[in-house]
């Protein structure tokens, strides 16, 4: 059961790369923003259906949430546009490693200062070492 779940998660990760792999060429054909719209359009339709059928019935309204929590949706397009612009130039693998470097360094900052209402957690050495190796990987990719 556990192994099965790990496999499913690996498949999920593969899905993310396939998404990037599809977006790059699509963006060079129809334009980056249109490619991005295809992701968010289809995604919004799908998640609307999921929400309609599987969301808990009496969940609180978006309008009762602090506005800061809602800007996640504004940040999403930045990521997708970046995928579309970058993958045709540097390839899918290097894009993924760059994304990973950004994620790890930013999450270090978020945790360290407890930004966005997360619990404050001091930077630990292991994550800094991890970040160092990710940057080394980026360097190798750029050379190869």
């Amino acid at each position: 059961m556990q192994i099965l779940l790990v496999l499913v998660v690996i498949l999920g990760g593969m899905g993310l790369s396939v998404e990037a792999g599809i977006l790059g060429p699509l963006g060079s054909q129809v334009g980056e923003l249109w490619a991005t719209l295809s992701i968010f359009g289809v995604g919004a339709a799908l998640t609307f259906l999921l929400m309609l059928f599987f969301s808990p019935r009496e969940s609180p309204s978006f309008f009762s949430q602090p506005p800061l929590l809602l800007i996640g949706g504004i940040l999403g397009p930045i990521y997708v546009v970046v995928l579309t612009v970058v993958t045709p130039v540097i390839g899918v693998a290097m894009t993924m490693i760059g994304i990973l470097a950004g994620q790890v360094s930013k999450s270090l900052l978020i945790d360290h200062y407890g930004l966005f209402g997360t619990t404050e957690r001091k930077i630990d050495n292991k994550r800094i070492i991890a970040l160092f190796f990710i940057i080394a990987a980026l360097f190798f990719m750029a050379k190869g």
Partner: protein
Amino acid sequence: MTLIFMVILAIIGGATLSVQAALNGRLGGNVGVFKSAFLTFSVGALITALLIFFFEPNHTVTLMDVPKWQLLGALCGVPYIVIMVVAVQRIGTAVATVAVIFGQLSMSILIDNFGWLGNEAISLSGTRISALMCLAIALYFIYSSSKSEAKAA
């Protein structure tokens, strides 16, 4: 020069992604996962639509002209959200994180190597393999750091 610029762009993309994850995690806790995912996608669609209205030049090829499989990108991204919600509760954040990154990397190396999905082929070289080794080590450290966190929490 463009290479460095593009890598920096990718890093910025990753940084916004983790800010988004932090915000959506909290929002999801308040209103439910599907609702927060829907907000992300619908606001994203609205913003890109606005950007298209005002900034996008005309293209001879439109979304309606490309082969339909090229529109399936979202079908590969949305399952990820659902899978993570189900899996994180059962196998823990640390294992889930490493498994996702493993899946991302192996698949992206395959896509690059064979030039799948219409991407240019970039063959697997010695330096690419060294890059993978560095990442494996990085993953080990991410794993052990999340593991000790889970214990503390």
